[in-house]
């Protein structure tokens, strides 16, 4: 790269982008999107037919998609124009790593809630660790997990049965673990610039991801229709859907990321030593995989 850096051969200039419209569009998009959801939720709660919320939500979604496409396109373009130095590459590494760490903390919160409920709250309500709460509130309440009979089982009707971990969840575990393996194979092929093999293995990975999502939808349908396991089914349903739901949302995002990577590979992007976009997407995918392993153990099996 030849530029006015000639006087100081040691350092590449750190690329500072010109003005960009994407941040303000992103802020407006998020504002409209969330305000729309809030309006819809509040209208639903009082059974009002107010539909301004849908307009906000629609506008926000369109803006957000446009922004995501445009912002990432800018970054990809800059990267492929050779504007990014090795130092910039490290910035992206740090950025993605600590972003995933913040996601870990989000799941840590939800897992923490699950453990707190199982280890402290329910034994106390059942009179195992402490008696007065049990005697004064719901003296007939017994602790079992998964919790099928809630302390107040008329307000929160418990589920009739729990999800069998060795049915769909086991299949899903196999899908996700396999997908991590296939993604790593794709990555190795990327390092060797074996284009057709990258596409093949990446495609299989995405397929496994979508297979997981389809199974998850089937499982939710079964839970709602046959097990009576709903969001209203007390703390078992609450933690179950919160944890698996947030994980499912992350799988969806990860699959979309991988899909974008597939298109980029097809367009001839990524070199053997310069492919952080791909690497970031695969970090994210492995993270989602690890979360699932924890889910499988703590939500389904134990």
């Amino acid at each position, binding site marked *: *790269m*030849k*530029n*006015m850096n000639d006087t100081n051969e*040691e350092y590449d*200039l*750190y*690329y*500072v*982008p*010109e*003005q*960009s419209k*994407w*941040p*303000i569009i*992103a*802020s407006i998009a*998020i*504002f409209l999107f*969330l*305000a729309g959801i*809030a309006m819809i*939720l*509040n209208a639903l*709660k*009082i059974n009002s037919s107010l539909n301004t919320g849908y307009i906000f939500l629609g506008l926000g979604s369109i803006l957000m998609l446009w922004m995501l496409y445009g*912002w990432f396109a800018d970054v990809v373009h*800059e990267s492929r*124009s*050779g*504007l990014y130095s090795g*130092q910039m590459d490290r910035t992206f590494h*740090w*950025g993605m790593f*600590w972003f995933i*760490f*913040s996601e870990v*903390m*989000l799941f840590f*919160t939800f897992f*923490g*809630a699950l453990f*707190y*409920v199982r280890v*402290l*709250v*329910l034994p106390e*309500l059942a009179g195992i660790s402490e008696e007065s709460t049990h005697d004064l509130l719901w003296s007939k309440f017994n602790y079992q997990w998964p*919790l099928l009979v*809630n*302390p107040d089982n008329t*307000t*929160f009707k418990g589920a009739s049965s729990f999800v069998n971990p060795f049915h769909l969840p086991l299949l899903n575990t196999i899908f996700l673990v396999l997908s991590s393996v296939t993604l790593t194979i794709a990555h190795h092929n990327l390092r060797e610039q074996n284009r057709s093999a990258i596409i093949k293995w990446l495609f299989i990975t995405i397929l496994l991801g979508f297979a997981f999502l389809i199974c998850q939808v089937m499982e939710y349908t079964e839970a709602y229709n046959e097990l009576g396991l709903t969001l209203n089914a*007390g*703390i078992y*349903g*609450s933690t179950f*859907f*919160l944890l698996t739901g947030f994980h499912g949302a992350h799988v969806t995002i990860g699959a979309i990321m991988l899909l974008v990577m597939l298109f980029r590979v097809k367009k001839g992007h990524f070199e053997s030593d310069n492919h952080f976009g791909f690497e970031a997407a695969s970090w994210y995918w492995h993270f989602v995989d690890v979360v699932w392993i924890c889910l499988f153990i703590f939500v389904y099996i134990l």
Partner: protein
Amino acid sequence: MEANTHLQSEPHGPPSGIMRWILTTNHKDIGTMYLIFSLIMFFVGGAMSMVIRAELFQPGLQIVEPEFFNQMTTLHGLIMVFGAIMPAGVGLANWMLPLMIGAPDMAMPRLNNWSFWLLPFAAIMLVSTLFMEGGGPNFGWTFYAPLSTTYAPPSTTYFIFAVHILGISSIMGAINIIATILNLRAPNLTMMKLPLFAWTWLITSYLLIAVMPVLAGAVTMMLFDIHFGTSFFNAAGGGDPVLFQHIFWFFGHPEVYIIILPAFGIVSSIIPTFSRKRLFGYSAMVWATASIAFLSLIVWAHHMFTVGMPLTGELFFMLATMLIAVPTGVKVFNWTATMFRGSISFETPMLFASAFLVLFTMAGFSGLMLSIAPANMQYHDTYFVVGHFHYVLVPGALFSVFAAVYYWLPKWTGYMYDEILGKVHFWLSFIGVNVTFFPMHFVGLAGMPRRIPDYALQFADFNAISSVGGFLFGVTQLLFVFIIIKCVKGGKKASAKYWDGAHGLEWSVPSPAPYHTFVRPPEIEEDKDYF
């Protein structure tokens, strides 16, 4: 790879017009916007505190309805924490970090602009709740369930999403700061040569990415309880309202240190400058900051001594909390040792920093009193707590922000601020703060509960004094705005290094700092430190 030289043209000045600010990727522009936003929110939150103090001037219901009073205490807290103090810290970080470490800008300039522009939208969403049917959030800034779920006004949904937006902004900002400090330092500027302001912001950023997602998790569970029928915080379905408190304070306690650690960094810059000595015990300061951050993650339940924890829990959280006094004490003694036998002069930044040193130490001592679990049963949720944390936040965090603004304002504007007016601002603020918050300790120990619009007659005198102090402090801040505007408009020209005792790279660039600085990294001398 095609060369793309036109995008890497020589540094130039800012574009003109309003779009300069909206589309900017420049850390100085973004820092300025953060600081102005924070100042505006400081007055919005301040106006709410004036309503509170006016109502409490005399016993009995005087001016506002209790319902509205609750909304005022809630929004005053939320706006001051998330709208005024935190953005002020991030604004200072934006302005000063690249200058201090010899970087051309923040590591991710566009993301940086996004972190800022999320804030006004979150603020609009939060403040708009006041005008909604059923009123704004009225459950206190800690929004304990079930007050914030079962018994909450409909506007709570907007409050939840406002908190989500604030969280995104903070996490992105923190990631940016980490990448900047770890990756964009000038070559050979090693970590242990960094100014403490950079160190404290690095550690604060780690706290932010560790606990802001927890806050997001808490409000998400609230959202589900309110709208989707879950029972996280409802014992009838097997959940627990205390679960909310644990999650909230797992975020809430480190949040206190997110606010105060950058303040430590500022004071660690200012005290050596005006004492004309090097900072005493630099590496001890770094380790103390890291220890405080670590301890802040394991003491959260000291906010919940009265909810009915097992005795072992009470003991653990009590002792862990007291442990924080050790690294904090290291800091206080190091600042004092820095001043010891120094050639001290008291310009406005030093006045604020010295007041910080004394009054923050006092806030620490009332914190130690609160950390004693059995005694805490007595003053839990009283005005003693209000007095304690306002001493942490106002003469602690806020005074350090004032000190930083006076310290670096000439670097930003190119003109010296009016020293006489600055000193007047300091003394009026100093008197105002103490008159407002010191009596709160007395009424608190005597049993006056917090978050009430009316109180028993025996608390009347001290409350009247508090209110007078509050009004004095509030009006004084208009002077602060005047001083800033005056300094922006003109005055005595500031040289590059207008404080003779200052150290660090930010003093090697002219005042005002050019639009682009350190496009090429500066030379770092081997045997010199930059703090």
